[in-house]
Each structure stands twice: as structure tokens, then as C-alpha cells.
């Protein structure tokens, strides 16, 4: 007898053969090792295909092809991302402010505030709270340590004399658009000066640490100086701190925040995070010390002495040669929404600010956001 073909073996195993045929197959299989192997294989295929088909029985109802269930991201990922962001923002504060002189700042503040009726400090609390409460210090209370409470005497007086309405959380009428001062040419020039300052500072730090200037006496004093400067900077800006009105879209490695510039007028800040914890921490440590050591004399002048715009102008002119590493790029779209992009000098994150504003306005908003973030990170740091 010939060897059995696969079809016959399956027919036999399925019991589909007549009695005569089945007997013949059985007799052959008993004697033929090759066909015994084929039968064993066929049994395997029958069992396996039954098992595979069983897997289809839990077919869902009403399947619409192409709609996979939305993936939810583990909250832990957000916590880690937020931690990285706060560390990164903290680094920014250290670099931006540690070199500033406490005396200069506190002297300058009263002059500015009394002369120019500055904006309320209170909304700054609003901005600092979500940023800090989000992750790192959920069990601590950063609100009590908001910059205003530690700032210089003049700044504190100013806060306490504010009408209570300004403290209302999320109060929409905090800053009507009309009251927002127009960005003057002076101011934008000052902004340019600041940017270049930062660039020079960084290039100096990168090449060799600057000669040691008198450093703050203690950590506490340094912190005080920083927060005083943050307050002073806000006061000097003559505008209220921005209010965060939402975090509309979320994606890994990217943070999107909506800021309310004025009621009904929002801008969107997109930050492409560098989620490399080691890199961020290392950057913070290596930059913090040299920055504290000095090299920011020009910054102190440029930033705090807002009244003395002439000085600033000369500073800016003098620093024209600085590398344009952090000069933002500006993209205009026909629909009226313009976008400002730059690289955060401290964190290396790609920043994108979009809104219905002119370039000058966006650059001003950018500085306000940076201040708000610096203040928020600062208060988080001190509450630890």
C-alpha cells in the first residue's frame, strides 16, 4: 500500500472514512513509521487549529475597525515629567537670579513702584500654585511661601495695600486689557539686552568660571535675594503676572500651558521637555555655582535699573557682539496667530509661544512667563 496522503489522514482522524477504508488506514499506520509521524503531525494540526479558532470566540460586539481604545498615560509619567520640569525651572531661577545683588534690588523697587503704579502681585500666587502643587510638593505648602511674602519691605507693603479683589483666585477681572501698558521701544530694547546678558553669562560660565565676586553670606540670604529680585522684576515690568488658565493638550515630552494675558485673551506656551533627569540635575549643579560666583554685574544693572533706560541702552549696544544663541524666531501666520520660538537657555527645552499678538507683545509675554515660572520654582525650592 502506498503511504497515506494528508487528506486521507485527516478524514480518518475526523471519522469520515467508511469502515473498510478506516480499517485499511489503521493497518497501514501500524506498520509504517513515516505515516505514524504524519498522523501525529495531523493530530497536532487538528488540535492546534481548534485552539486557535477558540481564540476568536470572544469577539467584541459592534466592532468598528480602526478605533482602538484611547491609551491612557500612567499618572506616574506625569509626576516624573512634572518633577523634571520643576527641577529644570529651578535651574533657570538659579542662573537668572543668583548673581543679582540684594541691595540693588531692594533699593530700586520702591522707586519704581511708587512712581509708576505697578501691577498687583497677587496673581503671581495663582501662577505659582498650580506649578508647584502639581507634583513635587503636594504635601508641602508652597502657597504660604510665595515670593511676595519673603520679598523686600517695599514689595510687601505693596501687596498688603492691594484691594482684596486682586487676591480672588481666578478672578477674571484682575487685569483688563486696556490697563496693560503698551510695550515701549525702550522696553523691548531692554529685553534684547537681557537676552544678550544671559548669553554672555552662559558663554562665560561655559568656558571658565568667572572670578569670584562676593557671594551671598548664606543660603537663606541668597534665597531672599532671589525672591526679592523676582518681585522686583515683576514690579519693574509694570504688568501683572500671568495666570495659567489651562493645560489643554498633553503629550509625553511636551507640556502645553495656556496663559491668560487679559480676560478672554490667552496665549499658548508649548515646551518640548528634555526628559533626561541626569542631564537636568547636572546642569543645575554645574551652572548654579559659577553663576552665583558672579559675572552678572551687567545683568544686575540692566534688569533692576529699569528707570535708567539710557544705561540699559548702552549696555545693550555694548553687548551687540554676543552670540545670538537664544534670540527667538518669529513666525507670522495669516490667521493672526503668531508664534515665537526659542530655546530655553537653561533647560535646553524648545519653547513655543502662540497667540494673537505682535512680536513685541509676544516677547513681553515670554518674559512675563519666564518670571512667573522662575518665581514658582523659587517658592517650591524654598518650601523644601
Amino acid at each position, binding site marked *: 500500500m502506498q503511504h497515506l*496522503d*494528508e*487528506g*486521507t*489522514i*485527516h*478524514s480518518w482522524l*475526523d471519522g*469520515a472514512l467508511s469502515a473498510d477504508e478506516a480499517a485499511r488506514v489503521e493497518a497501514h499506520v501500524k506498520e509504517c513509521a513515516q505515516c505514524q509521524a504524519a498522523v501525529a503531525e*495531523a493530530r*497536532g*494540526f*487538528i488540535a*492546534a*487549529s*481548534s485552539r*486557535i*479558532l477558540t*481564540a*476568536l*470566540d*470572544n*469577539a*467584541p*460586539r*459592534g*466592532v468598528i475597525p480602526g478605533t482602538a481604545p484611547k491609551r491612557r498615560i500612567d499618572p506616574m509619567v506625569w509626576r516624573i515629567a512634572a518633577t523634571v520640569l520643576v527641577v529644570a525651572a529651578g535651574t533657570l531661577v538659579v542662573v537668572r537670579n543668583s548673581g543679582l545683588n540684594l541691595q540693588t534690588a531692594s533699593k530700586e523697587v520702591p522707586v519704581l513702584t511708587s512712581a509708576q503704579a505697578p501691577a498687583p502681585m497677587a496673581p503671581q500666587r495663582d501662577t505659582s500654585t498650580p506649578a508647584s502643587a502639581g507634583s513635587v510638593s503636594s504635601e508641602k505648602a508652597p502657597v504660604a511661601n510665595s515670593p511676595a511674602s519673603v520679598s523686600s519691605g517695599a514689595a510687601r507693603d505693596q501687596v498688603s495695600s492691594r484691594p482684596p479683589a486682586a487676591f480672588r483666585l481666578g478672578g477674571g477681572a484682575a487685569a483688563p486689557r486696556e490697563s496693560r501698558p503698551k510695550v515701549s521701544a525702550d522696553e523691548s530694547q531692554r529685553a534684547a539686552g537681557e537676552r544678550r546678558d544671559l548669553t554672555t553669562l552662559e558663554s562665560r560660565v561655559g568656558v571658565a568660571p568667572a572670578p569670584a565676586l562676593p557671594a551671598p553670606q548664606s543660603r537663606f540670604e541668597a534665597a531672599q535675594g532671589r525672591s526679592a529680585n523676582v518681585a522686583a522684576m515683576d514690579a519693574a515690568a509694570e504688568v501683572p503676572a500671568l495666570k495659567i488658565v489651562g493645560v489643554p493638550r498633553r503629550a509625553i515630552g511636551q507640556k502645553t500651558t495656556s496663559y491668560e494675558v487679559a480676560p478672554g485673551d490667552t496665549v499658548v506656551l508649548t515646551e518640548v521637555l528634555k526628559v533626561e533627569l541626569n542631564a537636568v540635575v547636572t546642569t543645575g549643579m554645574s551652572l548654579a555655582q559659577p553663576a552665583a560666583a558672579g559675572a552678572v554685574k551687567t545683568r544686575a544693572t540692566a534688569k533692576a535699573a529699569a528707570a535708567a533706560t539710557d544705561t540699559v541702552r548702552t549696555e545693550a549696544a555694548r553687548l551687540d557682539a554676543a552670540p545670538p544663541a537664544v534670540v527667538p524666531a518669529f513666525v507670522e501666520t495669516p490667521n493672526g496667530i503668531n508664534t515665537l520660538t526659542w530655546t530655553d537657555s537653561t533647560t535646553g527645552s524648545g519653547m513655543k509661544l502662540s497667540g494673537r499678538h505682535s512680536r513685541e507683545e509676544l516677547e513681553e509675554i515670554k518674559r512675563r512667563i519666564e518670571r512667573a515660572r522662575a518665581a514658582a520654582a523659587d517658592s517650591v525650592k524654598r518650601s523644601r
Partner: protein
Amino acid sequence: MTDVERLFRTYNAALVRYLTRRLGDRDWAEEVAQETFVRALRQTSIQNERAWLFAVATNLVRDEARKDIRRRKHLALLAEQEREAMVEPEETTLERAQEAAMARKAVDALAERDRLALLMREEGLDYNEIAEALELSPGSVGTTLSRARRRLVESYEALQKSREEREKHAAS
């Protein structure tokens, strides 16, 4: 009990499972099964009930036939009763979902005739019934089934292997 009710109670579960495996959607499978029983109502006599039902169901899938809504309502009620009596399948885990997806792919990769013959065989149809439903010669059913099973298992195993390699790659 009317004749269609008897048919329904005898064959519905197997027919729905067959159609679910064929279509990948339980609701659609139930709809087609119900339509099949509606068609059975119109028949004065059916020689081999099971072969006839599976053949009609197969053709309905192929033709996307129109449905008799009024009659289906009664059958939908019966299906509801049967569903209540059935034990709900346990929650689908990720592993099981992946297995189901691979099984779906492997089944879809088969030739239509091979796939239908195998699915009918899994519902207990004998070779003659399969031959009748699919208009095959009874002698070729064994060959069809052996080919279908071998290909199904081989393509499933190939999918499994490539998945394992992907996972290994992802882990390293």
C-alpha cells in the same frame, strides 16, 4: 414549539459561533444567523438542516443580503433569552487579546473555501454536510481540511514567532 424555534434552539449557538469566527463581530454574526432562520421559515422542507443553515448563512455573508426586520424581532427576543442563560466570557486580558488578533490574522489569511470548511467542521458538521454546504465533492473535504489546518497553524506560529522577536527586540 414551532419548527423555526426548534431549528433556532438546536443550531443557533453553533451558527453564531461559526459566523463570529468568520466575521469577527458578534453582533453582525447574530444578525446573519437570525436572517438565516428567517430564510428557513420560507422553506417548505429542508433535507439536511445543518448543512442547509450553514450554507445559507455563508451565502448571506457573501451577498450582504437584506434583512427581514419584522421577523427578526421575534428571533432577537429568543437570542436575548439564550444570551441571558449563557455565562459571560471572562474579562479579556491583554494576552488573550493579542492571541485573538493573531488568530484573526491567521484565519483571514486562509483561502475562503478552506476557511469555511474548517469553521464548519469545528461546529461539528460532517464531511457530507460540509460538501453540501460548500458544493464540494465529499472526497475533497479531507484534502481541503488538511490544507486549511496546516496553513492556519503555520501562519499563526509565524505570527507568534515574529511577535516574540519583536518583544525580545523591545526588551533588549
